[in-house]
């Protein structure tokens, strides 16, 4: 029994869920519950009503429409890890989802829950950001879209109001000759939170051409997933290869803002930023040349 007192509702339509969230001040949505149940038990969140999203059909599943990949927020990590669409369109997201938590956690943990919970170490946020993911938000009587890099405001904080829901995450098709990669360092292989992660996207002018466009996102080294403008400026227009990647990796340290905690010191995290940036760029580059995304 959780040390709390709340009521529970499991509506079948999005409108019912939005009404319940709007009309009840202490209402909180629940997806898989792998973050929320513990937060409730620890008294960090004190809902009076928990609104389960599990039965709302339109929040589920992965589909492709007009070239865009649209992922429902209720899609689990296991489903993302198994999806051929994700594998061929955004390998970095598959990599992040495949290793997160444990098999049991991945069967419950959802993409939307990971993003909305907004931990600095949330593993699926950086792949969403480098791929230019667009967050579709909906509240009672309003809806809007926000680019994923503007969604996060701080640890546990997003642009959403408490009565809003994340409705979908849309990924426009990546340009040709693009590759992505997610690499992370954890203290154990399983059931561990990321100490530092780096996610990269590289777009080449042609298969053996220069870097036309690039994006980097650093995880768990700042209050939100950080884009790395200094590092990216070392990449665009340059020839891809170890020398260029090393310059970018050193610049990425300046883009990071790590703190000390029990998982690692800020100095350790800076070293990780450098070496993981090298690895992420190399892997993204190989994918771009190999026709994988």
């Amino acid at each position: 029994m959780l040390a709390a007192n709340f009521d529970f509702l499991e509506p079948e339509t999005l409108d019912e869920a939005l009404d319940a969230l709007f009309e009840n001040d202490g209402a909180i949505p629940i997806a898989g519950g792998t973050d929320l149940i513990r937060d409730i038990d620890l008294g960090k969140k004190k809902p009076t009503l928990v609104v389960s999203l599990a039965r709302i059909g339109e929040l589920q599943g992965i589909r492709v429409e007009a070239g865009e990949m649209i992922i429902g927020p209720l899609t689990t990590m296991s489903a993302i890890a198994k999806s051929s669409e994700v594998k061929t369109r955004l390998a970095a997201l598959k990599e992040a989802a495949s290793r997160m938590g444990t098999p049991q956690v991945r069967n419950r943990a959802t993409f939307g829950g990971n993003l909305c919970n907004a931990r600095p170490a949330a593993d699926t946020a950086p792949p969403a950001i480098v791929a230019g993911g667009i967050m579709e938000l909906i509240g009672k009587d309003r809806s809007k879209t926000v680019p994923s890099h503007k969604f996060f405001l701080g640890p546990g904080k997003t642009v959403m109001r408490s009565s809003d829901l994340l409705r979908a995450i849309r990924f426009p098709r990546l340009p040709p000759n693009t590759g992505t990669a997610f690499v992370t360092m954890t203290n154990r292989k399983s059931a561990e939170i990321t100490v530092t992660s780096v996610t990269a996207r590289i777009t080449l002018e042609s298969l053996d051409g220069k870097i036309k466009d690039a994006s980097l996102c650093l995880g768990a080294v700042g209050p939100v997933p950080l884009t790395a403008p200094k590092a990216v400026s070392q990449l665009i227009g340059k020839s891809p290869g170890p020398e260029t990647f090393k310059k970018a990796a050193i610049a990425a340290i300046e883009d990071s803002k790590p703190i000390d905690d029990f998982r690692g010191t800020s100095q350790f995290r800076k070293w990780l930023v450098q070496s993981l940036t090298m690895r992420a760029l190399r892997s993204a580059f190989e994918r771009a040349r190999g026709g994988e995304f």
Partner: protein
Amino acid sequence: MKKLLELTVNRVQRQIAVEPTETLLDVLREDLGLTGTKHGCGEGDCGACTVLLDGQPVNSCLVLALQANGREVTTIEGVAADHDRLHPVQQSFVDLGAIQCGFCTPGMVISAVSLLQSNPKPTEEEVRQALSGNLCRCTGYQKIVEAVLDAAEKMGTGKTGNTADKRRA
């Protein structure tokens, strides 16, 4: 206020009035008396509370009981096809000494059964991966991994006789 929960547990349909604050683990252990499923950490780390929810292994300590409404749950009490026969995975755990204190065993067996359903011939690495959400403080894991590989082999060749069968033979 209590609400009605309807779910299938080990192939039996159940209707129970539960508090919204109860977890699936609470209901299994306290309301249904199925104490094979263990309460270890209560935070998703140890896997002692692992059950199958609609066929997939999950941590029952991280599921609200009402989230399981209308769904199907399999606990360690329900993995064997009938009462006087162990599941081949359970039998291999017994035969190969993969159980010491036994606290992790129900969760380990559930994870292993689920693996062998989707992947009947796993490699050692795949077994370790599938069990990576289950902690054991006694065995050092080696014998557990061997037991799962043993069960896979026996299930593959159809040689899944348990000790009861051997005695009869």
